């Protein structure tokens, strides 16, 4: 692993591939699940405290 003392240093091919794979295969999927889960959680809490159980819908 190269040292990144210099912020303007051009990343190596390995770094680029690792970063790309990390973001597409791990980071974004995790964030997506967290966002959907968080949304579900918020709706659930709203159902518990504000709206009551979900009404009839399509």
């Amino acid at each position: 692993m190269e040292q990144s003392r210099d912020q303007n240093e051009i990343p190596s091919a390995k770094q680029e591939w690792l970063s790309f794979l990390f973001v597409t295969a791990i980071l974004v999927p995790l964030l997506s699940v967290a966002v959907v889960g968080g949304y579900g959680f918020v709706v659930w809490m709203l159902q518990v405290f504000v709206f009551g159980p979900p009404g009839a819908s399509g």
Partner: protein
Amino acid sequence: MKMIATLWNTLKKPPVHISLGVIIVASFFAGVIFWGGFNTAMEYTNTEQFCVGCHEMENNVYQELQTTVHWENRSGVRAICSDCHVPHNWTDKMARKMQASKEVWGKIFGTINTREKFEAKRLEMAQREWARFKANGSQECRNCHNYDSMDWEKMSDEARRMMMPAAERNQSCMDCHKGIAHHLPAQMGSEDPLLASLAQDAGSTRLETGNLYFTAKAVELFTDPELTTPAGKVEMATEVVIAGIQGNSVQIEIPSWRKEKGFGRVLYEDFGQNIISAVLEKDIAQQDSAFDYREKKVDELTGLPWAEVSVKLWAESGAYINSPEEMWRSAEQTYRDACSVCHTEPDPEHFSANTWPAMFAGMVGFTNMGPGTQDLVLKYLQKHSSDYVEGSH
């Protein structure tokens, strides 16, 4: 930290070694795989195999389902857990999946890991599910069953008599069909869940000597705190004063009126009003020293002498609530639901307290109210009859 810095340093610049085309195509397929995987995982949590993976579900509700029409029937269509218990709408489905975190919690801490614990929680769990069905008009039932597709000719007379008015009012299936797929909570027997929930509320009432309470169910009376010698029964929704507390028993005082004729076994709520508070055993009723006499009056209409009395007897604790309002609201709802199936129901104040019992007895056979519910609804009607609305009550 260094790794994050390296990562950020790489990400903030346009790529040098990977072509834009490769990034687009790879990202596209990553997206496809993710969404497919997400849905597959979501589908998996909707399978029966997943649901009964916990023995709590496998040994209780799953076994019960297997004795019902939703498991096996002549047309070979069956319902699995998620058909009835998971909303189809995406947002509600996500909310339900997050709600399942509570089930995971329960699994980890063994909240319902034995039959006894499950039974103890059954009412609470059932009520939560019933509330959901109530709110969405039993949407999950209607994903398969549809009022418009019912062939009235093929139904039995009895089924048609119940089902047609329900269809007209687009009534929620679960209003009548509770317990269709799993056992009903033990507290309910075949009774109305309304009585069960009242009895449950009563369990958490803090009792204090000298205060006024209302019975949340019919309560057996005894002459002794050990509750060994029966003395009668006090009716539901009756005003009682807690006169003493001893262990799990309470001494209740029932302020009432009774006819000074015959054995005087029946205690009434008010002078000249046929609203029953309690029915006593003959021995107690005739034992004058047990009663604290207040006023005596003759009812001009019947010529019968009445006496205002008060009697103190022992009973179980945990059957009393602070205010009758909730009880009256439930009774009113039951009255309106049951009677409006066939006709416009009269307002309670349309009749007097003494007219209602005969009126009610003549009609109640057409409804599906259990005996306990009938007692409560009749008392509601009497206590909201013409004698009480304009009066000082």
